[in-house]
C-alpha cells in the first residue's frame, strides 16, 4: 500500500477503477452497491472521529439521522434539487455535532460513550414525538427528487443514484485523504496517541476534537442526506443504536485510522450481511456477535492488517 501511495494519483485511479468495476459487475444489484457506498461514507465519518481523533462514539447515527431528516424535509418543503439538499444535510449534521460536541467532548471514556448513545436516543425520541413534521414512526414520506443538476433523472434501476453517490463518496474520500496528511490530520493523530503531550506542546486539544467531531458530523450528515434522497424515505431507524454499533463494527472489522479500512470493513460486512440475512435473517445477530468477538480477540487491527498478521505467523514458523 505504501509503495502504491508514491505513484501519483494511484489511489484516485484505483478508486475510480473499483467504482467502474462495481457498476458493471453488479447491474442487477446497483441499489445494494449504492447502499454499500453510502455506508462507506458513514463509516468514514466515524473513522475521522474515532480512528483519527480518538473520540470513542456509539452515537454517530444521531448525525447521520439528522442529515437524513434535514435533507428529506428540505426536499419535501423547499426544493427537490439534490445538491442543495446534500448541503443542508451536511450543515445539519455538522451543526448537531458542533453543539453536542461542545458538551460531549468535555467528558471521556465511558461517560463520553454513554452520552453519544444518549444524544442519538434523544434525537430518536424527538423525531418520534414531532409526528407532524417527521411522520413519527411511519417515517417521512413524499420525498420526490428532481434530476441531479437538472440533467440526470433518478431512474428505476438506480444508475443515476449509483453515480451520484459514487461521485460524492469519491470526493469526500479524497478530501479525507488530504486531511489525513495535512497538519490538522497529524495533530488529530497526535491527540489520539496522547492528549497530554499534545496539550503540553500547545495544541488546543478540546477545540481540535470539537472540530474533528463537527467535520465527522458533516460527513455523516451527507451520508444521511444521500440515503434519504436515494431511498426517498426517512424512518426512525436512522437514529437506531444498531446503526451506530454496526457501523463501528464495520470500521473495526476493516481497521481504524486508515481510510481503506473503512472501505474494506463495509464491503465485507455488508456482503456477509446480504448473503447471511437472505439465507437466514433470523440468526443474523448471532452472526454479528460472533464476528465481533472474533475480530476483537484474533484480529485487533482489523482485516486490513490480515496480510501482515499472516506474514508474521509465517515468519514465526
Amino acid at each position, binding site marked *: 500500500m505504501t509503495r502504491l501511495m508514491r505513484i501519483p494519483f494511484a489511489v484516485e485511479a484505483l478508486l475510480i477503477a473499483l467504482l467502474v468495476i462495481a457498476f458493471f459487475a453488479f447491474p442487477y444489484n446497483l441499489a445494494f452497491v449504492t447502499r454499500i457506498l453510502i455506508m462507506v461514507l458513514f463509516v468514514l465519518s466515524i473513522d475521522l472521529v474515532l480512528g483519527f481523533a480518538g473520540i470513542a462514539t456509539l452515537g454517530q447515527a444521531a448525525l447521520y439521522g439528522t442529515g437524513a431528516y434535514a435533507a428529506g424535509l428540505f426536499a419535501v418543503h423547499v426544493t427537490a434539487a439534490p445538491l442543495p439538499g446534500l448541503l443542508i444535510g451536511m450543515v445539519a449534521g455538522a451543526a448537531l455535532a458542533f453543539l453536542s460536541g461542545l458538551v460531549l467532548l468535555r467528558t471521556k471514556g465511558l461517560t463520553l460513550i454513554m452520552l453519544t448513545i444518549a444524544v442519538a436516543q434523544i434525537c430518536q425520541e424527538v423525531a418520534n414525538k414531532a409526528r407532524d413534521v417527521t411522520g413519527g414512526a411511519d417515517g417521512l414520506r413524499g420525498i420526490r427528487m428532481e434530476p441531479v443538476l437538472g440533467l440526470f433523472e433518478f431512474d428505476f434501476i438506480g444508475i443515476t443514484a449509483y453515480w451520484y453517490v459514487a461521485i460524492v463518496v469519491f470526493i469526500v474520500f479524497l478530501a479525507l485523504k488530504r486531511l489525513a496528511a495535512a497538519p490538522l490530520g497529524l495533530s488529530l493523530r497526535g491527540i489520539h496517541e496522547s492528549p497530554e503531550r499534545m496539550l503540553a506542546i500547545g495544541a488546543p486539544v478540546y477545540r481540535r476534537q470539537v472540530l474533528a467531531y463537527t467535520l465527522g458530523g458533516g460527513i455523516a450528515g451527507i451520508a444521511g442526506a444521500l440515503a434519504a434522497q436515494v431511498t426517498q424515505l426517512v424512518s426512525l431507524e436512522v437514529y437506531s443504536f444498531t446503526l451506530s454499533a454496526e457501523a463501528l463494527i464495520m470500521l473495526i472489522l476493516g481497521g481504524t485510522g486508515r481510510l481503506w479500512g473503512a472501505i474494506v470493513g463495509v464491503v465485507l460486512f455488508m456482503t456477509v450481511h446480504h448473503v447471511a440475512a437472505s439465507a437466514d435473517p433470523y440468526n443474523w445477530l448471532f452472526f454479528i456477535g460472533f464476528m465481533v*468477538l472474533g475480530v476483537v*480477540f484474533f484480529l485487533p487491527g482489523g482485516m486490513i492488517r490480515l496480510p501482515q498478521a499472516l506474514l508474521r505467523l509465517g515468519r514465526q514458523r
Partner: protein
Amino acid sequence: MSLFLNILIDGVAYGMILFMISVGLSVTMGLMRVINLAHGGFAMVGGVVAHVLMSEAGIGYVPAALLGIVATVALAWPLERLIYRRIYGFGDLQQVLATIGLTFLMIATVNRLQGSSLLALPLPTVLAQSVDLGFRTLPLHRVIVIGVGAVVIVGLWLLIERTRFGIKLRAAVDNRATAGAIGINTGLIYTATFCLGAGLAALGGILGAEMLPIEAYYPLRYMVLFLVVVAVGGMGSIGRSFLAALGLGLIETASRYLVPEFGTIFYFACIILFLALRPKGLWGRLA
C-alpha cells in the same frame, strides 16, 4: 400532595431497581476497569429464566425469581472465566466492541428461544394487592421493591465494610497490582464480584419487570439507563451508585409524571446538562 407522594414512591422504587441492576456495573468497572455494555443482559437473562419457569413449568413467583438469579450467576461465572478475563487488558474501544458482541449474542439467543414479544412476569395475587397505610394505599409491589433494595444496600455495605472479602475487594479496587502482591487472590475476587453483580442485576431485572419489561432487546433498550448511573455516580463505589440511582430514579419518575409527553427528552436533557457541568460525575472521581 398525592402526586408528590406518587412520584416519591415510584421514584424510589425505580431508583432501587436501577441501583440493583447498575451496582454490579459500577463495581466491575471500578475493579476490573472493564466497560461492560452487556451488563443489562444479565438482568434480562434473570427475567427470561423466571418467565420460562413461571409460564412453562408453573413454578411460583418467588422460587422462579430465585432460580432465575441462580441461573444468571451460573451463566456469569463461565463468561467471566472464559471471556471477560481476556477483555480486561484491552483498550476502551475493544472492550466496548467485545461486550456489544456479547450483548448481540444474548439478544439473539433470547430472540430465538422466546421470540421478540414482551415476556410477562405476572405477580402473584398476594403481591399485586395494595397495602393500606392508613392515610393512603400503596401497591405492595413498590413497597417490596423498596424493601428489597434497602436490604441489598445494607447487605452490600456489610459485605464491603465488615467482611474479609470486602477488605480484599476494596484493596483490589484501590490497587490491583499491590493487592495481588500481598497475596490476595485477585482472580477469585474478580470472579466473585462479577457473579455478585450479575446476580443483583438479575434480581433487579425480575423485580423491575413492571417498570422495565423483559424482552429480547432489553439490554440495548435500557443500556443508557444503566450507564447513566455509573457516569453520574462514579465507578467502584456502592454508596455513590445508590445515591445516583435514587436521584436519577426520582428525576425520571418526576419527568414522566409532570411532562408525560416529553419525559424521556426532559430526562436526558437534565443528564446531559448535569454531565456538561460536572463531566466527572457527582464526586468528580471518575478515573
